[in-house]
């Protein structure tokens, strides 16, 4: 899950990383009050879980409380790349002398956390890496050793960060690494980490990504999870414990195994169709799970046909068939459902489905073709 700027900055501040004075407002009146409190010039920033808000006009300066009111009024409700702005962060405006990039993230290829530091902050790290590759310093951490002072000196030297900033930079870097570990983050990013006119280093913008697998031990963060701008069907599927992704086609898909389901989506496209979703019921699914899966897929108004593609290994085909039957009996299914069941208890499964309205298919290819045809008719 992604944390937005205001959430990341709250965590930074708690850890002792300097951030500008500010607070979140949900109304223009609140924005004015916060600007009043802060005094002087403020910046009003749209809080959305996506980049590009600056270009979209979601970041504006205001000279006084009334200006803050007006800017908040303009930004709140704005659409930033599909996300409606419901909150703005009102912060003391900063006089920036220089911008740095500081991030720690997981490098899956090196199987390590990697610290990235650059003296060319403010842009996306991909952009920095492309435009100024020589200004990007990277260092992969040994988990046992952690982030040491010599690492920090190495990074600073390589990134060309002035030596006089090391005294401020070192504790910030250590705190970023502490935050990464203590919050089970896969990314903690400060960009820009700004040197102000008075020489202080301040985190002007921040981003964090939290490992969903670790939310069981990150109670505070887990509570924020629902706030994400996910599709309502994704939220519903998550509540039911299903690995579901909403897509923009019209063939509903249910299968077992991520690779099998991805391949099913690919096969649907090969046959001229487009999947409405990804849904993996996993290994050894019981009838109950299958019922839940089908209910979620059928509740999607985009779905014009459904393809159930199961290779029975641990998963038993008769269990899958039973789950399908349960749904057919409890609700009216208005779209064609194509079913391919292969493997463990295949015969038993097919027998259960005989005489129902489900469309059987013998092969992967046949199933994809039939489902696409059904959706088009």
């Amino acid at each position, binding site marked *: 899950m992604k944390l937005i700027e205001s959430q990341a900055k709250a965590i930074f501040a708690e850890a002792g990383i300097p951030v500008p004075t500010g607070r979140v407002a949900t109304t223009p009146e609140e924005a004015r009050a916060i600007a009043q409190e802060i005094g002087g010039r403020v910046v009003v920033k749209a809080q959305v879980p996506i980049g590009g808000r600056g270009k979209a006009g979601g970041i504006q300066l205001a000279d006084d409380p009334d200006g803050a009111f007006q800017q908040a009024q303009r930004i709140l409700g704005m659409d930033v790349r599909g996300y409606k702005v419901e909150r703005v962060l009102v912060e003391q405006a900063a006089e920036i002398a220089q911008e740095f990039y500081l991030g720690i993230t997981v490098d899956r290829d090196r199987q390590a956390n990697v610290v990235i530091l650059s003296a060319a902050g403010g842009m996306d790290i*991909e952009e920095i890496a492309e435009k100024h590759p020589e200004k990007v310093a990277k260092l992969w951490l040994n988990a046992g050793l952690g982030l040491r002072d010599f690492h920090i000196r190495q990074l600073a030297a390589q990134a060309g960060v002035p030596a006089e900033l090391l005294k401020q930079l070192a504790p910030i870097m250590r705190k970023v690494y502490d935050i990464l570990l203590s919050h089970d983050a896969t990314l903690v990013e400060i960009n820009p980490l700004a040197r102000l006119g008075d020489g202080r280093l301040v985190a002007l913008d921040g981003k964090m990504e939290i490992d969903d697998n670790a939310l069981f031990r990150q109670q505070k963060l887990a509570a924020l999870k629902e706030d994400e701008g996910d599709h309502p069907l994704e939220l519903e599927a998550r509540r039911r414990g299903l690995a579901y992704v909403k897509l923009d086609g019209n063939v509903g898909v249910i299968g077992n195994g991520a690779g099998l389901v*991805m391949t099913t989506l690919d096969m649907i496209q090969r046959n001229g169709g487009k999947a409405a979703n990804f849904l993996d019921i996993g290994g050894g699914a019981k009838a109950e799970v299958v019922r839940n899966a089908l209910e979620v897929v059928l509740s999607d108004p985009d779905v014009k046909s459904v393809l159930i593609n199961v290779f029975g*290994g641990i998963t038993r085909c008769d269990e899958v068939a039973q789950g399908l039957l349960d749904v057919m009996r409890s609700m009216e299914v208005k779209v064609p459902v194509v079913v391919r069941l292969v*493997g463990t208890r295949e015969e038993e499964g097919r027998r259960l489905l005989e005489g129902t309205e489900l469309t059987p298919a013998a092969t992967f290819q046949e199933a994809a073709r039939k489902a696409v045809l059904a959706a088009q008719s």
Partner: protein
Amino acid sequence: MSILIDRNTRVIVQGITGREGQFHASQMLAYGTQVVGGVTPGKGGQQVLGVPVFDTVKQAVDATGANCSIIFVPAAYAAEAVLEAADNGIELIVCITEGIPVQDMIEAVQFVRQKGVRLIGPNCPGLISAGQALVGILPGRIFTPGPVGLVSRSGTLTYEVVNELTSRGIGQSTCVGIGGDPIIGTRFIDVLRMFEEDPQTKVVVMIGEIGGSDEEEAAEYIKQMKTPVVSFISGRTAPPGKRMGHAGAIISGGRGTAQSKVAALEAAGVPVAETISDIVDKVAQRLGRA
């Protein structure tokens, strides 16, 4: 021959008293695997499926001479189970558990590497050397001994391939599910190296998917391999930024697309199949059985 496991592999099951652990232990025993014991803290002294249960891996290794461990421990404790196995002389660790926190796995993978221990997984179906030993949750009955080595990030998809191979009379040497997580102990390139050394394996099937760059890295290595490799990449139609079931199956920052992987493989001269049947056709071709 085979890679990683064979008839002589002595396996303990960490989490043997759990539902999953016990069920799959019974399947492994049924396949003929030497399951010599299990570990569940606090349940030492019990017997499960006729094998002794121990409180610690150390006790299990001391008592049974196990050299391999398969882990069915819940996600919150699974990385610790890996550390325990690696710290107590286990040479091959197979971690089935899904949903282990990434930071836990970074530590575990680095420790395992430092110890010179081999870890398969996590979030994987394990592995099988057809006709010899099953250390995992793969459906043993679809496998038959033969010349095809398989390595895959996806379980069920691999079963589809194996099922079709077997039905067409083409057997398998070893099939390794390396797992769907971003941080895994063994990557394509590691397994390819082993297949390259294995006299039984005449063709390798590599089944990749979106996310990361293991396939691209493997493509570089395959250029110099003598054993032919046939590949397949799933997720060609997956949208960016969405996890497709596997924690590791995600296109982020424009990296890890199926297109990039297909391009790298094709540049390395590796045929990339379009469908599962196509994989099997290409394998048959390379075995001269087309």
